[in-house]
């Protein structure tokens, strides 16, 4: 019996001894990956205190591809960083906000890019790989991601475990880490023309109803209060959405009403571009929800001028 236990321990010893250094090594190199829509570039900037700015833009992919920091900077004369996180709603946007404040100077202004899915119920941890290099023993990441299907509890505490079977991650770590930066200050203009995503979606369902999650509304409210308590000026912006796409969301008005109510309750400026000219020009979009690079530049200029005109940013 003793011999068996000793042999097993001896066999496992190299694995245990290697686990942490290997984890650190993979995490170190994987951070250089520009895959996963460049999400790791943003996390790196956050954790390396390179994301400090006057104006922070929060939101989902619609923030990430719509708000060009250069155009906003030019118009407003302030430094801007785009923290848009692809495929995620207020829950993980808030996680990014928390991590940002922990390692960087507090911004003066936050533009929260709202969309139809900001307060939606979601269970799937989209692009979960973006958390891999930072999540070991990270309590905040665990608090905000463990309720999604993606990681087990042990992944947050046991080195290397979360990399098991992540062959794409390992490939990116060792063979694809020197490609060019994907984002510029968190932003990426997408050079694409209109695709048939909406037509395909309409074949499946005439329209869809977004499942509103009250816990997401509560979190949004918490976020608003925290901004107000810490002296950060917060704006709501609903950037352009192609008009046909707006019709596709059956409860869009209910969702907008939640935002309107909150903006009134907390006296937040709410710039809603749902009826802007851009929304009627299909050539500025690559799908119903997302502007292409041209559309994003036009919108960013427009927003900059409007913020200046309204003297919301001083």
């Amino acid at each position, binding site marked *: *019996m003793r*011999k*068996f236990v000793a*042999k*097993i321990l001896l*066999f496992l010893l*190299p*694995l245990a001894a290697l686990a942490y250094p290997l984890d650190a090594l993979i995490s170190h190199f994987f951070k250089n990956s520009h895959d996963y829509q460049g999400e790791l570039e943003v996390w790196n900037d956050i954790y390396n205190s390179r994301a400090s700015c006057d104006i922070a833009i929060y939101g989902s992919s619609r923030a990430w591809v719509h708000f060009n920091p250069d155009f906003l900077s030019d118009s407003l004369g302030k430094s801007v960083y785009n923290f848009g996180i692809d495929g995620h709603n207020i829950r993980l946007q808030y996680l990014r906000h928390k991590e940002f404040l922990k390692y960087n100077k507090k911004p003066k202004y936050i533009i929260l890019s709202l969309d139809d899915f900001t307060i939606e119920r979601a269970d799937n941890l989209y692009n979960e790989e973006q958390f891999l290099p930072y999540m070991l023993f990270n309590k905040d990441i665990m608090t905000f991601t463990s309720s999604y299907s993606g990681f*087990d509890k*042990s992944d947050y505490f*046991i080195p*290397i*475990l979360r*990399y*098991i*079977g992540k*062959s794409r991650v*390992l490939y990116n770590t060792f063979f694809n880490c020197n490609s060019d930066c994907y984002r510029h200050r968190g932003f990426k203009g997408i050079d694409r023309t209109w695709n048939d995503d909406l037509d395909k979606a309409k074949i499946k369902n005439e329209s869809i109803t977004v499942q509103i999650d009250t816990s997401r509304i509560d979190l949004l409210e918490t976020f608003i209060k925290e901004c107000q308590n810490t002296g950060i000026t917060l704006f709501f912006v609903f950037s352009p959405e192609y008009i046909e796409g707006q019709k596709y969301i059956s409860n869009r008005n209910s969702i907008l009403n939640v935002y309107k109510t909150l903006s009134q309750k907390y006296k937040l400026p709410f710039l809603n571009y749902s009826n802007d000219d851009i929304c009627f020009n299909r050539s500025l979009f690559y799908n119903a929800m997302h502007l292409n690079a041209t559309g994003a530049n036009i919108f960013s200029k427009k927003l900059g001028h409007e913020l200046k005109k309204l003297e919301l940013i001083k």
Partner: protein
Amino acid sequence: MLFNSIGFAIFLLIVFIYYWFFTGKRIRTQNIFLLAASYFFYGWWDWRFLFLLIFSTLLDFFIGLRMQGAQSKKVKRFWFWLSITVNLGFLGIFKYYNFFIESLAESMSQIGWQMHPWTLSVILPVGISFYTFHGLSYIIDIYNSKISAEKNFADYAVFVSFFPLLVAGPIERATHLLPQIKKERTFDYFKAVDGMRQILWGLFKKIVIADNCAEFANQIFNNSSNLSGSTLALGAIFFTFQIYGDFSGYSDIAIGTARLFGFDLLRNFAFPYFSRDMAEFWRRWHISLSSWFRDYLYIPLGGSRGGNWTRIRNTFIIFIVSGFWHGANWTFIAWGALNALFIMPSVLMRTNRQHVETIAQGQFWPTIKDVFQMSFTFALAVFAWIFFRAHSIEHALSIISAILSPSLFTVPNFDGKVKAVITLMLTAVFMIVEWYGREEQHAISRISKKWNRPVRYAMYYAIILAIFIFGGKEQQFIYFQF
């Protein structure tokens, strides 16, 4: 608690240490501890169904005692049928009620009579088919005076609920496992080491082979309507390896785990894809279930005694019942019937025991005849698996008709081709290792006999590295749903 989870690793470590170091190696204490650990393991899935398991165990335990003490054959028969009725009743309610009621309603609607059946929205208790069959075999063996009723409840309860085999087998027999439970167990170093080896190989089969193949099998079977024949054929092949890796991997982990505690469970797989005909395949696939049906259904029905018609009838009965055991769906029945059809020539020509020994025994290379026979048998198995995996008979037929169309000769088209090629390469390596170890209890058992320590250890670390790099996205074990 999945076998391939950290939770199970911790559980196993604790149970192993306590079992060997803190029970004073007293058999009674060990058994009570194993029972408590097994109930904890089962309760981890869903504690509510623990009551069902305990009830089923108590029922068969007491009925066993009643049968043993019955004064007349009539009384014995009464208790016997009571147990059969209650056991199958539970299985029927949880597993088959909705199927029967919906099938009845559909049949009625065919003749213009609309029924609005009341269906149950219950989840299937994990492992119910397995532990029910444990109980049934025990009761039938007592009825046939093959064994005496067990007087110690804890010992009997361990037989039904021993955690390695509780949720997906192997389906044990009282004649095989109960004597081991009652016998003093001493730690056997070589058995435990080989058990660990078998666990490692089982993990490789599940995590690397089954979970990767599952990704493509699911993608192809779930979007089959617009896919070419070649893509669908590839999907069927992926599923063929998925189900083998998944279930035989599970069995390897279960058997290996039991060996750590000094138990030898029944073998469940013996390299079935190297079979030379379907009769051999069925002697090598899910052996504990096939032999259960052979002993408790086929032989009581008359087996292969009597004329051709009796043999045809009995063969179809056991294969259809076996198919139905897997789940309440016509696809499983069709799968069973198809296998009966495939095995029929050898049953009628009485050549079903032609290939009892291992293929190419004592040699490395098979003969051309062996290769031809293996390929043909493998093709039949793949064909049958289409029914097993399809959502409905119509779905299976649509896949088969696409496979049998000219599009079979086009290049397969689906997402993730690079990963699919890597998966096929891994599967090829896996099959080579299986071929190398085909004369042993499990594929890498031979390594311990033939290879020296450094090479052996290198192989173990290589397997762990393969799991680390190529492990697929975690999937539920297929047989948990049965």
